[in-house]
């Protein structure tokens, strides 16, 4: 570990930089005659002890957050092959457009006559997303993929309730994202988990056996979390629809399919789209994202309130008169700033750039799979945009997937997603995305192969990784045992 690297020194908390009486910024003084607070507000409502916020000068704030920022890995610094997360490059122009006056300073309750530009942007983005997904109607309101899933599950409920019975169960495969089962429960359904077949795909026969008139539908990621296209999707859609159910696509992996095929054409009724994955809006250290939900015509009446509409004169309005809508899921109209970024990106990609992106994402993954596949096992074979390797062969040396992940950090490369999906032992899930060069992919593959060699020759070295990061391996069990989740001054 290089002690000289300033990134490796422990940074004080902003609270620990605080000194009584220091001020960071001048707040405008009211230019009207101020009155004593206790004349304006009841004394019983006033706070006696102010919140113990830090007291630091502005320059210290800048130094503090700059210093701690340097301890982050990020896409602008290096490769980020996190499976299912689509960590592609975030074009810088998006940050500029999202901050344009006239977009960034609109209050959500401005009259629609004063926000026509914002509404036009949302309308056109919705049209483009409908076209890419092969759907008829869309809500841009969900603030994240998980909230999009939740809207999807509530659409199941609203659709079936309108037909007289909400039904009881939703089927999901065992390879599904963890949010799927959690979402199903929040929507008031029971989870039926279906095993995958030897190819890592859904088995239509098993599905048929699980379907019934108490099943509201199926949530099926495509390509699934193994990166495999559900090639029986036509049969699957037919079975679900014949049983009166709906077919939902978790669109987390749309980067593999866009411009190649469309969820709507595959028989899906509902899809949520992660703009922070496929459409390049930055991840922000864990949000904000956006999870628009697109649907077939028969589900449009149930979409969240309000629905954006175009008037006959070409102007735009918000339609609140939707008696069968599931209601609102966000305080306002969704993560508008994220929508601006996705819109900018889609306009730059254009018609041709969309399929080109998917093809390169799949090419990059096939290349990584080809280079690593002889060393790291691929129990279910190569996927489209991502592949799931197994680190189980390293167990003979006492080395686990977790150790490989930590050792990769020493190469300036983020670890892949590990231990997911659950159906692969010691899973290593890699998604390179289309924006990485061959040289960067080679660097990653070389590092992975070197680590496999290190594991055989000197397993303890790999088990002790990482060595060059701002902190060494952290004790997560300790954090769980004695949760310390906040600073206290005393």
């Amino acid at each position, binding site marked *: 570990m290089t002690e000289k690297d300033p990134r490796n020194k422990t940074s004080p908390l902003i609270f620990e930089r605080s000194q009584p009486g220091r001020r*960071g910024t001048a707040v405008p003084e009211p230019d009207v005659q101020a009155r004593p607070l206790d004349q304006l507000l009841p004394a019983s*409502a006033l706070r006696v002890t102010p*919140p113990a916020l830090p007291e630091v000068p502005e320059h210290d704030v800048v130094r503090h957050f700059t210093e*701690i920022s340097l301890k982050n890995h990020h896409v602008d610094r290096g490769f980020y092959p996190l499976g299912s997360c689509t960590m592609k490059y975030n074009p810088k122009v998006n940050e500029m457009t999202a901050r344009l006056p006239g977009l960034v300073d609109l209050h959500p309750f401005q009259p629609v006559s004063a926000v026509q530009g914002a509404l036009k942007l949302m309308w056109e983005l919705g049209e483009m997303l409908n076209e890419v997904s092969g759907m008829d109607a869309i809500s841009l309101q969900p603030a994240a993929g998980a909230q999009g899933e939740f809207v999807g599950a509530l659409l199941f409920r609203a659709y079936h309730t309108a037909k007289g019975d909400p039904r009881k169960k939703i089927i999901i495969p065992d390879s599904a994202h963890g949010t799927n089962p959690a979402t199903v429960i929040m929507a008031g359904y029971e989870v039926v988990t279906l095993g995958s077949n030897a190819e890592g795909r859904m088995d239509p026969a098993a599905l048929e056996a699980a379907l019934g008139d108490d099943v509201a539908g199926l949530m099926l990621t495509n390509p699934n979390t193994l990166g495999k296209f559900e090639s029986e999707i036509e049969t699957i859609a037919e079975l679900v629809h014949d049983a009166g159910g709906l077919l939902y696509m978790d669109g987390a992996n749309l980067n593999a399919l866009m*411009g190649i095929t469309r969820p709507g054409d595959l028989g899906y009724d509902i899809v949520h789209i992660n703009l922070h994955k496929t459409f390049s809006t930055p991840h922000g250290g*864990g949000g904000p994202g956006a999870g628009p939900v697109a649907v077939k015509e028969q589900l449009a009446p149930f979409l969240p309130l309000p629905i954006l509409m175009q008037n006959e004169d070409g102007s735009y309005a918000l339609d609140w008169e939707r008696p069968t809508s599931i209601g609102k899921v966000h*305080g306002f109209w969704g993560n508008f700033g994220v929508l601006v970024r996705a819109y900018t990106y889609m306009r730059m990609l254009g018609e041709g750039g969309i399929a080109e992106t998917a093809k390169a994402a799949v090419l990059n993954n096939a290349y990584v799979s080809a280079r690593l596949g002889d060393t790291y096992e691929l129990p279910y074979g190569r996927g489209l945009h991502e592949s799931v390797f197994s680190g189980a062969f390293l167990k003979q040396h006492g080395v686990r997937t977790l150790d490989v992940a930590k050792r990769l950090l020493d190469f300036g490369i983020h670890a892949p997603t590990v231990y997911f999906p659950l159906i692969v032992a010691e899973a290593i899930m890699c998604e390179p995305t289309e924006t990485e060069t061959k040289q960067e992919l080679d660097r990653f593959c070389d590092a992975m192969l070197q680590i496999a060699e290190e594991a055989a020759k000197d397993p303890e070295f790999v088990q002790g990784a990482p060595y060059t990061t701002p*902190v060494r391996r952290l*004790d997560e069990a300790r954090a769980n045992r004695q949760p310390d989740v906040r600073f206290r001054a005393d």
Partner: protein
Amino acid sequence: MSFVPHSEADRQKMLRVIGVSSEEELFADIPEKLRLKGQLDIPPAVSEWEAVRILQELAAASRQLICFAGAGYYDHHAPAVVDHLIRRSEFYTAYTPYQAEVSQGTLQSIYEFQSMVCELTGLDVANASMYDGASAMAEAAMMARAIQKKRDKIVLSITANPHYRQVLDTYNLGLQMPVEIAPRTGSGVTDLDALKKLVDDETAGVIVQSPNFYGLIEDFEAAAGIAHDAGALLIAVVDPISLAILKSPGEAGADIAVAEGQPLGIPLSYGGPVLGLFAARQKHIRQMPGRIVGVTEDLEGKRGFVLTLQTREQHIRREKATSNICTNQGLCALAATIYLSTVGRDGLRRVAEASTQIAHYAYDRIVAETGLEPMFPDSPFFREFALKTKSPARDLIRRAAERGVLAGVALSRFPHIDVDDGLLVAFTEKRSKDDVELLLDVLKEE
């Protein structure tokens, strides 16, 4: 153009290593008949410069107005340092901090954020944030139900933000908790006698907002007493700016506090992205939804931060998780942390005081000079109040917008309130005496 970096030579080399002759072969698992035929109906690619022009035109088709609108969303000044720092690539192009050893910047900032939310709310623990104030309130109701096991009724004051109630109703479609609405008094605040009658041994949580939707101060202490007497929890919905000068929910006895964090340095951005604040008592930490960051040590004994208590979360617990939320509003939480660090203890009080001073000044002059009557003259307010209007408030707002003023929010646009119409007017430290004169001009014409 796409952002694909490969030259033709790269492509060929890669295809050779893979052992195929074209990308088409890689898609062999997708049956031919399911492939897209023809082109997507999407406009052709534009250059970066053209994209900027298109966006500038869209921006120009919206109007920038002097903002007196609130209803949960306020036009405060964010010091330049906030946007400057959140634009660092290290923060905004990072993912959720799954690999803690290379995510200490994000993790430490979340720990600081949680600490600040605890300070503001006077509660013991806070999470890494929720999508917004509305979904935070819905998640708080679900958390109260999870804590109380055999109880599932929620009693919600009618004076809470009606959009929050709509979101609660949506979140509740599947869970079907009984939700009962406590009425208000003629003074615009929760009718505590009526509240007491609704809260019983079936009640898991009582939800009261202060300042309430009409800007008025509610009595959290009395509401907490009513909730606790019946064995229920009090969920307080607050305005984070007000907490610099108003008694904290923790002090007043609330068990869970939630808020819309947008006023803390986050731009209006037509309603999103925003930030849900969520805090609770220590004993309920394991039922709290969302990400939580905790302190630990590395193997050399150095302080470090990790995502903790993840056994509550869906990627481990799946259908037994406390919630399906699997991100936070990371960058917005960072913005709030930088904002609170920069304005600091003294500055947040100044922002709160300036907002309340200009609001009271404007109130007195509106009442004295425009002939418009306040809707609730008997109740103290923080920075926002409701006026009765002679013509529909919607029309008034439309006319004012023509003159560059966003005069407020029309109450007629909200469902679930027992007021047909009126104008809700809000103030921040950005509003000056001159701005108030403009507002008065607009209102005098009514």
